[in-house]
Structures are given as structure tokens and as C-alpha cells.
């Protein structure tokens, strides 16, 4: 890929002959070795310092057991550490539910359980399996475990340390608020996502695509529009929100207009690039068939442009969400995700804000996921999608 490394004076290192082992990424490190015995030690101390005896002893024994298992079977070590750490977390949350005020023993057990969970992640990540199915399972399980522990630590810390709700509500509180206010959240989702985002997205992407096809026959216009399109995608376009609110009123059309402007240029630039992606040999082939402009557009250049178009669709899915939500900060009827976030923040109902953010995150990732899935189906032939 580059010359920088080969241009370096490449002096063979003397130790190469000395049989020094080849540096390997992700080598089995001493840190990893210390993690499990360390966990056991912390768990033992926690039991002595007033933490739960069962949890302390349990974690200590499992830590040592897993350490011993490690040399025999990574999978079983990962399984028992994962199970034990999650069970310990459940118990610790139960302690808080029971109204017990956490002491140093409690916190040491939190640390021990978390360290054991991390050891589990390390073991799972170190597993090399040839089965594609198990690899996929692991690739899903590992981040899920990581995310679960993020939530567990968040719950334990906010509740154990009595963090004020206005600063950071606990996940359980947010979940409670979420289930209580589904009707409000649904209305906001309808207003912001189903109306502003989807309509604006369809119009913006559609017009960007159409303009790209229209200027396809004019290299002059392309050379003029491409640098401008590239520049515009770096500009703070959300700033047009107040203008759009003035022009199109408070309701969703003004938000959709912001989304249209934000999504237009990425689609334009990507489609233009995609339409010129076909190899010269492919163009020659169409020429030998005496194909018309439209035939080579539909049979060659548009399919070749699909990966680029999907790239724009994916970028735009996030931009559309941002545009619609931020535009609502500038004025909206009393419904909408951005409106809810800004007003509930003002009222210090931070749990409601988090619930709304959860909706936004869910909607955003599902939207993106749906586009990515369609992309895989339509561009299965592209080298990046072949399995």
C-alpha cells in the first residue's frame, strides 16, 4: 500500500537469529494471568470487610477454579466466570433493592464481579473457532455482555452512590419511565420519525439522486457541483433550521425541509461518483454492443453505482435523525422527540430525556440496520459482501 516502510533503511535486527519469538498481536499477557487470582483476592477481602459472605467466597473460589480451568478449556473458564459475575451482579442489585446501604465490602464485591466479567470477555475474545456459526455467536455475545455490564455498573454506581436523579438516573428508573410513557414516546416518534425524518429523507435522497442523473451528461456541471457538494457536507447545515421554521411553520414540514437539505448533497456527490465507477473496459463492452445511453445507464452504470448510493443512504439515515431532532430545538408544536428532549431537560426530568434518547437510538439503529440489510440483498455481488 505504501512505500514509507520499505524506504526505511531496513537493517535486519541481530536478535532475529537469536531465536527471539516473533511478536504476535494479542499475545497471552501477564495481565491476563493476574486478573483471575487478583479477583479472588479482592473477593476474599470483600467478605472480610463486611460484604456478603456468600458472594465473596463464591467469587473467590470461582476465580481460582477458572484460573485452573484456563489452561484446560477457555470456553468453560469463560462460562463459569460469566455466570458467576452476572449472578453476583444480580445479588448486589438485590442488596440495593433491599435498602441496605453499601459499605466498602459491597464496593469491593462490585469491583471483583466486574473484574471477573472482564476476564470472561477476555477469554471469549481469545477463543478461535473455525465454525462460522460459533464465531458469529461470539461476535454478538461479547459486545452484548460488555453492554450488559455497562448497564450493571451504571445501575450499581448511580444507586449505590445516591447520584441525584437530575444528574444521571439509573437504568431501572429510565426503563420504568419508558414503560410508563409509551404513549407520549409513540406520539413523539410518529411526529419526528414517521413524518419529518422519513418524508424528508425520501425527498432529499430522491432529489439528490435525480439531480445526479440529470447532470450526468454534463461533465461541466459535475465538475462545478462536486466540489460544492463536498464542501456543503462539511458545513453546519442544521443551522438552516430557524429559517425553515420561519418558512414552513412549526409543524413537521419545516423539519422535513431541514432533512431534505441535509441529505441532498451526500446523495448527489455519491451518486455522481458511483455513476463514474464502471471500468473503462465495461464502457467499451457496452460500446461494442452499440448500446444506447439509457441502456448502458440501466444495465451497467446504475448497478455499478449501487454501493455508492447505499453509502449515501446510510450516511443520510443518521443525518436525517440529527436534522429532525435538532430542528425541533428551534420551535415545534408540543410533540416530537427534539421538543420533548429540550422541554424535559428544562424541567429537569432527566429520566424522560433518557427514555427519549433510547427511542432515538433504537429508531436510528433500526433505520440504519434496515438500509444495511437491503444493501446486502441488492449488492450481494460486491466484493465487500461476498462471503
Amino acid at each position: 500500500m505504501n512505500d514509507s516502510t520499505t524506504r526505511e533503511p531496513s537493517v535486519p535486527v541481530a536478535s532475529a537469529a537469536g531465536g527471539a519469538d516473533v511478536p504476535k498481536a494479542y499475545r497471552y499477557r501477564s495481565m491476563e494471568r493476574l486478573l483471575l487470582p487478583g479477583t479472588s483476592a479482592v473477593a476474599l477481602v470483600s467478605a472480610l470487610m463486611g460484604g456478603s459472605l456468600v458472594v465473596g467466597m463464591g467469587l473467590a473460589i470461582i476465580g481460582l477454579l477458572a484460573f485452573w480451568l484456563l489452561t484446560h478449556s477457555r470456553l468453560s473458564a469463560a462460562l463459569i466466570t460469566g455466570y458467576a459475575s452476572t449472578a453476583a451482579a444480580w445479588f448486589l442489585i438485590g442488596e440495593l433493592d433491599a435498602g441496605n446501604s453499601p459499605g466498602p465490602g459491597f464496593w469491593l464485591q462490585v469491583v471483583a464481579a466486574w473484574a471477573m466479567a472482564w476476564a470472561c470477555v477476555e477469554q471469549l475474545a481469545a477463543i478461535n473457532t473455525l465454525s462460522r456459526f460459533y464465531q458469529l455467536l461470539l461476535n454478538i455475545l461479547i459486545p452484548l455482555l460488555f453492554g450488559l455490564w455497562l448497564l450493571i455498573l451504571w445501575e450499581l454506581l448511580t444507586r449505590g452512590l445516591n447520584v441525584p436523579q437530575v444528574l444521571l438516573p439509573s437504568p431501572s428508573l429510565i426503563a420504568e419511565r419508558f414503560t410508563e410513557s409509551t404513549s407520549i414516546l409513540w406520539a413523539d416518534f410518529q411526529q419526528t420519525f414517521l413524518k419529518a425524518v422519513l418524508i424528508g429523507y425520501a425527498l432529499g435522497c430522491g432529489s439528490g439522486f435525480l439531480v445526479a442523473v440529470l447532470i450526468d451528461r454534463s461533465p461541466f456541471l459535475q465538475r462545478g457541483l462536486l466540489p460544492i457538494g463536498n464542501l456543503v457536507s462539511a458545513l453546519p447545515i442544521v443551522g438552516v433550521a430557524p429559517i425553515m421554521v420561519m418558512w414552513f411553520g412549526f409543524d413537521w414540514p419545516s423539519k422535513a425541509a431541514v432533512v431534505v437539505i441535509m441529505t441532498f448533497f451526500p446523495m448527489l456527490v455519491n451518486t455522481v461518483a458511483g455513476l463514474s465507477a464502471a471500468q473503462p473496459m465495461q464502457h467499451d463492452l457496452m460500446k461494442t454492443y452499440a448500446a444506447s445511453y439509457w441502456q448502458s445507464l440501466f444495465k451497467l452504470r446504475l448497478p455499478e453505482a449501487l454501493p455508492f448510493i447505499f453509502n449515501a443512504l446510510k450516511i443520510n439515515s443518521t443525518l436525517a435523525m440529527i436534522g429532525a431532532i435538532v430542528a425541533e430545538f428551534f420551535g415545534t408544536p408540543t410533540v416530537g422527540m427534539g421538543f420533548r428532549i429540550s422541554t424535559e431537560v428544562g424541567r429537569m426530568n432527566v429520566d424522560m430525556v433518557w427514555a427519549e434518547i433510547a427511542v432515538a437510538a433504537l429508531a436510528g439503529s433500526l433505520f440504519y440496520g434496515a438500509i444495511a440489510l437491503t444493501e446486502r440483498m441488492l449488492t450481494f455481488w460486491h466484493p465487500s459482501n461476498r462471503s
Partner: protein
Amino acid sequence: MYEALTTQENQASAVIDIAQLSLTFPTSDGDVHALSDINLLINQGDFVSFIGPSGCGKTTLLRVIADLERATAGSIQVNGLSPAEARLARAYGYVFQAAALYPWRTIARNVALPLEIMGLNSRDIEQRVRHNLELVNLSGFEKKYPWQLSGGMQQRASIARALAVEPDLLLMDEPFGALDEIVRDHLNEQLLQLWAKTNKTVVFVTHSIPEAVYLSSRIVVMSPRPGRIHDIIDSDLPRERDLSIRETPEFLALANRVRDGLRAGHSYDEVA
């Protein structure tokens, strides 16, 4: 005078008639003479190979015949028409160095591509696709995607695609250059059988001497700077031949003649 004479005389049997043709590319370092004073007559049923070192203009000449490049001087006729008219009449099938199959189309749909563009009805398309895939021994692979096949099979599919147009003239630009020796031998053999069966005119670009001698009824030896024809060698090998012919003295003599021609037209201190 000469020009008018040859064209008139040979119009009946000549598939390609090139007279005093040259092609110059203007570049920032001055003009590049890609082709200079080319005179060539190719008759119906010929298998003509262009051979020469890189930069001798053999691919450019083929592209001029296919109307993918325009000559800057001289005259050229394909089937008695200008190359552009011949291209619009779909007078030839072209096979590129790479298979250039569309990855989003199955093998069958790739072969169908030129037929769709010509506006054939679906029954004819289906029938021609089946027939031509059979011809290149690819029956059973209709539903596969190009990237699921080997390089040799891909190139065979691209030959089937060129044949599907049912042209009398087949233009092939180093079609087997990227394949390994064994596959190449095999495809050469198949190509010869195909040529014998269909009596098509084939113009074939290569830089391999054995390939040129094995396949051709005429070998055009070209040399670079400016790109020109150095020698035209008529092969006296029988039309029916198999790979073992490459060990015969006649074959070797012919190969030596081609090699001598290449050497004479090539100065080695110039780097392409």
C-alpha cells in the same frame, strides 16, 4: 490509386480492409505514433493473430477495427462498412483481456446482456444463451455468479457472450493472457474447434509466439515506435490441428520465423 484498387478488388471476400492507416495520440510530450501506415487485408474465414511487444499497437489496431478508437489517417472498412457503421450493425463480437462479466448478473444473464440490448425476445435469448454456453462447455453453470467461477471459466463465459451476438467476426484482445498455461492450452484447443465448426473470421491479439502459431492461419508481426506491421506470415499448417502439432518441425520453423521477425523489429535498449 492503390487504395481504390485494393478496396474495389477485394470487397467481395474481404472482411477487413485496412489501407495506409495511422493513428496519432497527442500528449503533453508531443505526438505518439501508435499506428503508422498499416495495410492489411483479412478474408472471410481467416484466423489472424497480431503479435508484437507491448507498445507495438496491436491492441490499438484491434480497437480501431472495433471502433473503440478512431484512426487519424488512412482508410478502414469492416464488412464493406466504416467501423462505426459495422459496430452499429453489431457486426462483431469482442472479447477483452479480462472477462468483464457483470458481478450482479448470473452467467446466463451475462451472456444474455448483448441480446437484451439488441432487443431480442426472451425466447430467442434463452435459446441462444443455452446454445452458446453449450458451445464453450459451460452448461450447468447458468445460475452461478461470475465470481463463483474460475478465471478460465469466466473467460469462456465472456467468449460465449461474444458469440451470442452471432457475429461473423470475432475480435479477441489477449483473451487468455491472465490465465495459467494449462488452462490456456485447453482454451486454445477449444477455440480452434469452435473456429473450425463455425467458419468465423477471428482476429486475435497475443504476445505469445506458440499461441499465435498454434491458432492462426496468418500471423501479423508488429513492431513499436511507431507501431507498424513488420511482417505478415501465412501459416502452412493444416487447418485441423491439435496441441501435439507444436512438436513438429513445421511448427518450430514457423515459430522461429515469427521470433526472428519480432527480434528484427524490436530494439532492446528502448524500454516500453
